[in-house]
């Protein structure tokens, strides 16, 4: 079983080396290697899920520097997630990177990035975790700034800085854990973590939320996400958005749920509140985006919120001793983790092929692409339907489970938790509705209607490898949606090792049944019913209406001469009502400036700009940085350039030392 692991990793490293060696001549076979490696590691992950924890590797160099890699069911689950996405992204990348500037470096970073993510979820002690974690961050940083432009450099800087701040908190929390447990090894820490003082536990909880939340992108630590993900090449963005932020979730699960164990109830409440806020704000910002990749990035924020809702519910239930329900909630969380990885990966890949074909990320310049790029359009549609949690695709099942776990009746739960959970469900409903709106726009504007610019008119469909990559994920969206029972069975060991009880959702014949609340869900049945009805309907129409007669004409243009693309609704126009309604959240900045030839009679041109205020940058981060800079500015006085002053420092230092230390 471990041989699978080694085989996979070797293949990845081989891919990395290969793509470095034949830099530009590499015909993308590095990606073939990685895709095969991904298959091996997927197998490894599945095996891990069904086996007791295994020690993979441990090298002790000095007492400080020991590399310990250990796999258990939790890491197994995440390995599975990573591998699935990696597999299709690798296949996609073969076509995507064709003719790219220094793609050899890209291939190298790609492989190392994935390896480092595997390393994170497998690391068995602090130092290993930290090294792999930061390696992951650094490599992803280099991928963000890959096209050495000013803009992406800025994005990269924000990203690197924020993850480094997160890193500081992570280091702190690990060292505190070490101080109080005396262990650097996760197993040892977990064993000793039971009798930590509550204050310490709380501190670690908070640090973990901040540290890993930064990577996962919880509000208000999400600001790097919409900057960094669009800047990276699209195959990388799909990895970052699909997988890397999940590694942040892994950290939260590993530290809070696995190591600290069942905590006080308010932890869960806090997590639910964070989740609710994150999901709603994330999708609200996504809705009004015009840059399609930023839109998707904000959607990732929303989905992280939904995942946290599941986890939080599970924690509340666990701390009230309702273990079965908590297991269900955790299932919901993990399931959504998997699903989001799949459909967000798919969406970013299809967006990638969109951008690849149109050379723009601006929705306003696209349109009518469904005719030019049918496959991409179809896969993007599937992705959208899944992310909107519409029935019989995968997002639906996990969100449904999340609802169930949030609504599962809380008997002896404190008032705050009682309020928080249903309101969390309400937030979920709200963000769900918003997601529909958001993706109607995200699919409708670029793909439907008439082309809005030459970018759209001379786009063409992507090469087969890219289509294959998307197709795999699209298929997965459907399969995970229709056969939830089998999927849940697959990763239920991870759930039980997280919640500490052997409980598996009774789900046979494609039906999920929650006995506690006597509800069932069977996407399969829904699908079958739909097909049956479809046939019935077609027959019936035939009977009633006879043979269908169709004439083709132009769209109705109110009797004007002809319909031009400029008459269509733009993305901005589409979401204008949203900006109007939620202006207390967006703080939109509208400005109409007219250029006159002869004021006020003859108007030359009118231009209209409509932006939303970057609230968090403006009101949270800027003050902090300004404060630090002002202090630095004051300190800068010290080095005024006058040597007399410097000599004065020496004198004063000496006198102070003589007076106070002697």
């Amino acid at each position, binding site marked *: 079983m471990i041989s699978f692991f080694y085989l996979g990793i070797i293949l990845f490293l081989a891919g990395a080396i290969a793509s470095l060696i034949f830099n530009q001549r590499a015909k993308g076979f590095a990606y073939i290697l990685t895709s095969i490696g991904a298959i091996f590691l997927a197998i490894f992950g599945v095996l891990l899920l069904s086996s007791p924890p295994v020690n993979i590797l441990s090298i002790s160099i000095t007492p400080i520097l020991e590399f310990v890699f250990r796999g258990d069911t939790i890491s197994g689950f995440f390995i599975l997630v990573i591998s699935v996405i990696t597999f299709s992204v690798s296949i996609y990348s073969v076509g995507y990177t064709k003719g790219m500037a220094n793609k050899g470096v890209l291939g190298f970073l790609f492989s190392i990035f994935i390896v480092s993510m595997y390393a994170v979820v497998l690391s068995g002690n602090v130092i290993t975790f930290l090294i792999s974690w930061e390696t992951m961050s650094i490599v992803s940083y280099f991928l963000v700034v890959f096209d050495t432009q000013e803009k992406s450099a800025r994005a990269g800087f924000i990203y690197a800085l924020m993850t480094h701040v997160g890193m500081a908190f992570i280091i702190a929390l690990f060292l505190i854990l070490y101080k109080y447990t005396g262990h650097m090894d996760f197993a040892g820490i977990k064993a000793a973590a039971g009798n930590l003082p509550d204050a310490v536990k709380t501190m670690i909880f908070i640090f973990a939320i901040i540290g890993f939340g930064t990577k996962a992108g919880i509000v208000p630590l999400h600001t790097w996400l919409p900057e960094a993900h669009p800047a990276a090449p699209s195959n990388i963005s799909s990895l970052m958005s699909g997988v890397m932020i999940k590694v942040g979730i892994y950290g939260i699960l590993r530290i809070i749920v696995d190591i600290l164990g069942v905590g006080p109830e308010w932890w869960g409440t806090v997590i639910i509140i964070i989740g609710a806020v994150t999901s709603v704000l994330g999708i609200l910002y996504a809705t009004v985006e015009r840059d399609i990749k930023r839109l998707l990035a904000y959607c990732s924020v929303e989905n992280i919120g939904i995942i946290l809702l599941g986890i939080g519910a599970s924690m509340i239930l666990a701390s009230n001793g309702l273990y079965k329900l908590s297991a269900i909630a955790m299932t919901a969380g993990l399931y959504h983790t998997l699903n989001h990885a799949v459909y967000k990966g798919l969406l970013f890949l299809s967006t990638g092929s969109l951008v690849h074909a149109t050379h723009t990320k601006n929705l306003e310049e696209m349109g009518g692409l469904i005719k030019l790029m049918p496959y991409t359009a179809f896969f993007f549609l599937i992705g959208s339907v899944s992310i909107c949690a519409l029935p019989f695709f995968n997002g639906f099942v996990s969100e449904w489970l999340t609802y169930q776990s949030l609504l599962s009746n809380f008997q002896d739960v404190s008032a705050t938790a009682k309020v928080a959970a249903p309101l969390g469900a309400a937030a979920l409903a709200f963000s769900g509705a918003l997601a529909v709106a958001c993706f109607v726009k995200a699919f409708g504007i670029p793909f439907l209607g008439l082309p809005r610019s030459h970018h759209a008119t001379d786009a063409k469909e992507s090469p087969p490898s890219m289509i294959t990559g998307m197709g795999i994920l699209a298929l997965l969206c459907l399969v995970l949606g229709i056969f939830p029972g089998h999927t849940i069975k697959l990763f239920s060991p991870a759930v039980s090792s997280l919640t500490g009880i052997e409980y598996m959702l009774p789900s046979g014949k494609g039906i999920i049944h929650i006995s506690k*609340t006597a509800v*069932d869900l069977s996407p399969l049945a829904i699908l079958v019913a739909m097909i049956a009805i479809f046939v019935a309907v077609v027959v019936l129409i035939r009977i009633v209406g006879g043979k269908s007669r169709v004439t083709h004409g132009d769209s109705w243009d109110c009797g004007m001469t002809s319909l031009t693309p400029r008459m269509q609704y733009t993305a901005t126009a589409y979401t204008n009502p949203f900006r109007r309604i939620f202006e207390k959240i967006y703080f939109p900045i509208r400005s109409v400036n007219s250029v006159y030839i002869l004021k006020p009679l003859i108007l030359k041109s009118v231009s209209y700009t409509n932006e939303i205020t970057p609230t968090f940058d403006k009101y949270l981060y800027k003050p902090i940085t300004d404060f630090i800079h002002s202090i630095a500015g004051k300190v800068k006085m010290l080095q005024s350039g006058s040597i007399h002053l410097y000599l004065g420092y020496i004198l004063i230092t000496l006198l102070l030392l003589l007076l106070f230390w002697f």
Partner: protein
Amino acid sequence: MEYLQFVIIIIFSPLVQGIIKKLKANCQGRVGASILQPYYDLIKLFKKEMAFSRVTSWIFRVTPFIVFISTIVAAMMIPVITTKSSFGLMGDVIALIYILALGRFFLALAALDAGTAFGGEGSSREMIVSILVEPMIMLCIFTVAITAGSTNIAMIAEPQNFIFSPSHVLALLAFLIAIIADTGRVPVDNPDTHLELTMIHEGMILEYSGRYLALIEWSHYIKQMILFTLFIDMFVPLGIAHDTGTTGLIISSGVYSLKLLFLVGFMAVVESTRAKVRIFQIPTILGGSFVLAVLSLLTLIMVGK
């Protein structure tokens, strides 16, 4: 037998629409068309030929089917005259809402497909209404669901006793407003107009004609009736049968039609006494009822059943 109760909805939904129209006409002192008029319209439409815009894509063609089918599947899920139905295993009330959302999603897409300004306008406004209405409906559902300890509609409708806690009253009011908004009725939308400033639903389906239009209209009727039925099941389930005994079924169908008539009357009255509001006043109305829904949930949690 009990598996076919959804057919009731499918068949009678145009009738309900007809009755509402009739009542409205009477309220406004007109004679109005016959209550069977919707049927005539549908049959007529089925027979007519269709005109497609050249701009449109396959999305435009599949949408009517998806909308119609998903609506029917939703109809299969709710108990109409008896709570005993194995279609419950397809999903619960939350699933039902999401299935309806599927139809809405595709309808909004199809509206954008023709590339006209009306389509975009309609779809955008539809989305605005839906993001306000859907959570509202959800909240009302949560209220009753937490009371019943399940989101299974049958389970919600099982307890005959006609619960009348403050939370339920609030939820009931909120749900009524939600229905008004979601079925596209005054004051939120005006189903009888094609004035571009006012229309929402009509704007979306402007490009449709012939049998596709028929499918969409019909599914619109069905959806309306589903919402009525859902209302009945959630708040006034009194009299609904628990088994498939003939007597029980007869009684419950009688009761059901009475409740339905009451609701229909209510709708008619509301529509003829209210005026259509500006699009940007809708949020204030819906927002108010949204607060009602939240309050209902909070009171339930705080006060208890």
